[in-house]
């Protein structure tokens, strides 16, 4: 193989490599943008759930706040924190709680 042919061959190989790289780069970029979009979507979903979680935590804190617990204790148990009635035995508390709803029997 002559020198000119060798150069020609190298040029062809280089051209093929460039084309392959160009195609590869295009594919890599399109894959990356797809992945990026997916990641953004997931991040958005995470943020959405985090926001919902924060709202739920705030709601739990509100429901467990001493003022709310005291109101529930007064409404449902008839006791006020700090009063002598707050020292009710456990059995008494269970007795004062509203009766649990009966589960329906499955129809046969």
């Amino acid at each position, binding site marked *: 193989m002559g020198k000119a042919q060798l150069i020609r061959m190298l040029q062809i190989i280089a051209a093929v490599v460039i084309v392959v790289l160009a195609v590869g780069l295009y594919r890599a970029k399109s894959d990356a943008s797809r992945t990026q979009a997916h990641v953004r979507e997931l991040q958005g979903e995470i943020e959405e759930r985090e926001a919902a979680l924060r709202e739920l935590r705030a709601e739990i804190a509100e429901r467990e706040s001493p003022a709310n617990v005291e109101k529930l204790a007064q409404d449902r148990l008839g006791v006020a924190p*700090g009063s002598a009635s707050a020292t009710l035995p456990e059995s008494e508390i269970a007795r004062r709680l509203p009766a649990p709803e009966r589960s329906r029997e499955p129809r046969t």
Partner: protein
Amino acid sequence: MRPFNVTGAFQPQRAYSPATAGEAAPARNRVRLLAIGVFLVLLLLAGRAVQLAFSGDPLAEPRAPNGASVLPRGDIVDRNGVLLATTVRAYALTATPARVWDAPAIADQLRRVFPDLDRAATIRRLGDTSRRLVYLRRGLTPEQRTRVHELGLAGIGFETEHHRDYPQGTLAAHALGFTDVDQNALSGVERGLDADIRAAGAEGRAVRLSIDVRMQYALEEELSAAARAAGATGGAAILLDGRTGETLALASWPAFNPNEAGAAPSNARRDRVAGDLHELGSTIKPFTVAMALQEQVTRSGELFDLTTPYVIDNSTIIDHERVEGMSTLGDILAHSSNVGAARLAVRLGGARQRSYLDRLGLTAPASLELGRNQAPLAPQARTRRDVAGLGFGYGLAATPAALAGAYTVFTNSGARVTPTLRAAGPDAAVERASVFSPEVTRQVLLYMRQVVTDGTGRAADVPGLLVAGKTGTAEKLDGAAGYDDSRNFSSFAGVFPANDPRYVIVLALDDTGEGAAGGAVAAPAVARTLRRIAPMLGLRVEARSPAR
């Protein structure tokens, strides 16, 4: 190119000659340049590939180290992790004026969801076509957003934003403070720890306070009940762990809801624990006695004749109720004798008195991490009369927070610790500044216990808890008219349990009426509070008062 001319005749190829070689040289150079160019491009691509492989995604959203999304402000929790303040998602109601055709109709529709929406202002904003986007309302809840969305109004939209939420409502409102709609801190811890709360939001962590919501609730409830019963215009109370300086509860009355801070009157939004100044009255007397003992201008066995008024610089100092017979230092505190305290103060002298007041922290603002710590009014005593007045709590206006800080000397064998709202770790170092000797502190503690068992503070006694303290009833200044004995600042400051004092409590009611002394209105509220709080602190309280 094929070797044919346009006519199709064969044309022989030109033979190689040095001339043609000379023409080919630039072409080869161009090929080389092209090759170099291609090589450089490939090198660039390879470099970028390596950079992308070894670096993170430069387009990724900023996230906290623990994976949580970055928030403008972090959560605030109490010492047990109970949520006090958080940042939740909210919506801003916006409008694009260019797309609004019938502003009055849209305003009317919106008022069905927001009845308090200003119709005229809304119409004006909707018609402001010079602006691309206008805000109509901020901080909408998801439910409000859904209701507006269902109206299907053209030109009306929403923007997602953050909203500060205080799930405990009015609880600890003055301690927490609040922010504006843009999350800028305006008061309370929100302002005092603003930088830390913002950093916590960026890092996805919470800021932990020393407050305990259970104790906070008990203190607020009892303060509110006492203030209403006494017809006071305001109230303040603070409970400290006197060993570490941690604030377990901090209450001001009247209360407000920080979720609707804008709707609350400024009187209710005012923090009275670190923000309001009052002449402290007799709650300062234990310090006068301690100063006198420390400087050896008296001794524990000395007897005083308090039956006659004390005349000094043409002023006469009298006691509200004459103390009969010869009195001990304990009697001076138990009967809250102005005459006795004034005599001790004058013996001590202005310079030494001032030095102790400085070291007790009563001449400097309290250092609670709040938006505002009011500086005291503490002019230098110029006359013996001023010194005598300071001895029983007049001529120095300080905050209840500063007074509570000073009372920590009785929980640290004579050393003062600085009150804080930050939760301290179990091994955290506590800075203590020595003011009195342990012997003097122990002696004064016995006298303060006598105040509760046999003196003006009997209503603060909680059987089984061993409360020691001092009542205070300071007449309020009424401008140029001088002191008004029908308007009082009534208080109780104390420590417990007296056999191993650890906790400090100060409760004060502002503008109580004539005869509403600290022992009559503040001391009972302290007892009620301690009965509720003691079990939370692991302290035993007897159910009923033992027969005397």
